């Protein structure tokens, strides 16, 4: 197997995303939905001091058995181009999600369905559904700095890490709690450590840093524009920046979200994917 083949699978050459440095590939996509789920009923109990596990449990509890629907705008900036996509999304429980592109027109109707560990893409232009092979898991999702694997991993944070509170106090303009999370011994994650900084007031995240096994910073995700949406306060803007390419970024802005609506499983079928 020579270099050609290997390059296909190396982080340096996902579907055209040569500009992503390998280190920054593994995304903290967990927090895309984590953010959503924190809000899925995050009723921070004021005055109660929660342990790290409690915080995590709260998150996962809130995550479980709930659903969501919304619209978001994703802007991707790379060394060679800049793109903005308008997306519509549905999610149910821990392992079903459907995301559809609304604009630009050229890609309208393109959709990604995730169920459990499997991912399918629908391509309206050719009217075909493709199931992503395992070799494409580390490839970029929709051209962003998130990977397909991140989409799959979003529900497993509590399963894969054990966290403890390492700092409480002032920081970033308010009182924060910092959780240091180390992957469990058998967890299939390549990171060495993940740092989550949440606001002490409502346990909403401010920034999440990923470190590789050598504990060097690899990626950083910041949360901003805290606003009330559908009855909950949540950060409406997520910014993902690879540490080695600080001028590149993927910015996700939530325009609208609804929670706990009743969603039929049919929504997450391949047939619906093709609409």
């Amino acid at each position: 197997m020579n270099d050609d083949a290997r390059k296909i699978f190396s982080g340096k050459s996902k579907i055209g995303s040569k500009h992503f440095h390998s280190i920054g590939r593994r995304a903290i996509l967990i927090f895309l939905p984590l953010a959503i789920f924190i809000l899925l009923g995050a009723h921070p109990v004021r005055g109660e001091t929660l342990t790290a596990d409690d915080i995590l449990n709260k998150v996962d509890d809130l995550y479980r058995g709930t659903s969501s629907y919304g619209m978001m705008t994703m802007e991707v900036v790379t060394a060679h181009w800049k793109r903005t996509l308008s997306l519509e999304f549905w999610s149910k429980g821990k392992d079903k999600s459907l995301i559809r592109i609304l604009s630009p027109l050229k890609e309208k109707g393109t959709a990604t369905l995730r169920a459990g560990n499997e991912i399918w893409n629908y391509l309206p232009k050719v009217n075909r559904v493709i199931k992503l092979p395992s070799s494409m898991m580390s490839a970029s999702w929709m051209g962003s700095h998130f990977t397909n694997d991140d989409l799959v991993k979003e529900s497993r944070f509590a399963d894969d890490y054990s966290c403890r509170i390492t700092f409480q106090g002032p920081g970033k303009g308010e009182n924060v709690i910092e959780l240091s999370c180390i992957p469990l011994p058998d967890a299939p994650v390549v990171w060495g450590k993940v740092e989550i900084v949440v606001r002490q007031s409502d346990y909403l995240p401010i920034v999440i840093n990923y470190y590789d096994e050598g504990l060097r910073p690899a990626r950083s995700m910041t949360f901003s524009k805290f606003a009330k949406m559908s009855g909950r306060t949540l950060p409406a803007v997520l910014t993902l920046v690879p540490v080695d390419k600080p001028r590149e970024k993927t910015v996700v802005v939530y325009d609208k979200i609804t929670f706990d609506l009743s969603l039929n499983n049919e929504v997450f079928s391949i047939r619906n994917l093709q609409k």
Partner: protein
Amino acid sequence: MIFRVAWRSIWRNRRRTLITAASIALGLIIAIFFIAMAEGVYEQIVNDGVRMQAGHITLENPDYQMAPAIDLRIGDVENIRKFIKKIEAVEEAKLLIWGQGVANSGAGAVGVSIMGVEPAVETKNSPLARDIVAGSYLAEEDDRKVVLGEHLAKELKLGLGNKIVITTNNARGELVEELCRVKGIFRTGSDEIDGYFIQIPLNFARKVFGLQADEATQLGVILKRPQDQPPVMEEIKSTLTNKNIEVLPWQQILPEVASYIRIDRVSNWVFQGLLFVIILFTILNTLLMSVMEREREFAVLLALGTPVRKLKGQLFLESVFIGCLGCFAGLILGGLAAFALQIRGLDLAFLMPEGVTISGFAMSTTVHALVTPPVFLWTGGIVLGAMLLLSLLIMRRIKKISLAETLR
């Protein structure tokens, strides 16, 4: 009586006899030496190849060769293995679970070939186990451990103990991701191997790919002597009742290696043949000259009443003696040289400083010869035969000796 005459006759012109015999001997020495060396190289390549992969004989799913996939497996392997190991010519029977996947580290992702192996068996046999340069090879009790090549380790920036997440599709087509840690790093010298193969314990591989306890992708049979391949294959085929298992020789599993050997052998033969032609000319020349030189001698003998037949017989015997002399010397010296090469080996590192890979297998720079008895028989035979044919040709000249002319 004729023998004695012939024998003494050849020693009368010592130089000519020695030169002729030496030419024959030299040709044989070269032929034997280079053929033995080539065979040694081939054997080493085949040996490494079959021990690292699926044996001299491989048992696998009939559809596997066409399009390798993890769901094309064979079952009941323990029973089959037990029965195969009972065959005397079999050295070892190894199980393999083989799949394609992606190895992920913090630094990147690379497509890899994942080999689930039995550490106990591999430690004894596999070149990979032998070529560990850092850490150690897999052990029976290991679970989430992996050994990989130096090239791959460099690409993924991995050191001992570092994490790798293997991403692949299991036998049911589902996506699976499993963590394991680097236990050892090997260097075979071939980028294709060092950058592409990773090995994990068989039981862990079963878990990853979702195979049952008695299933595997391949069962490889390693033979004590490669020549036993056809009879052992027959025996296995006749006893195997399971229609879903195909028994294949390594030549079909590693066709590139087989091709390379075939081509190289042919070119070797062609060159030996050409060399042989050159030597034949020399011998022909020598014989011609000697007949010419000794015309006077023959004329005298004929004039004295020696029957032509006897003279021819004497000449023929002389050729036989010289030929045998040369042959024995050549076979013995050539055999000794080849044998020495077989035992001690020759380091050809100066010819290939970075090492050489043949079809993806790294050739060790030290070559050992392989001496096989048939080589002696047919090289010696051909040379002797040619020698005698030539002398028969030459002898026709004897008839043409005009006594009167010569004895003038």
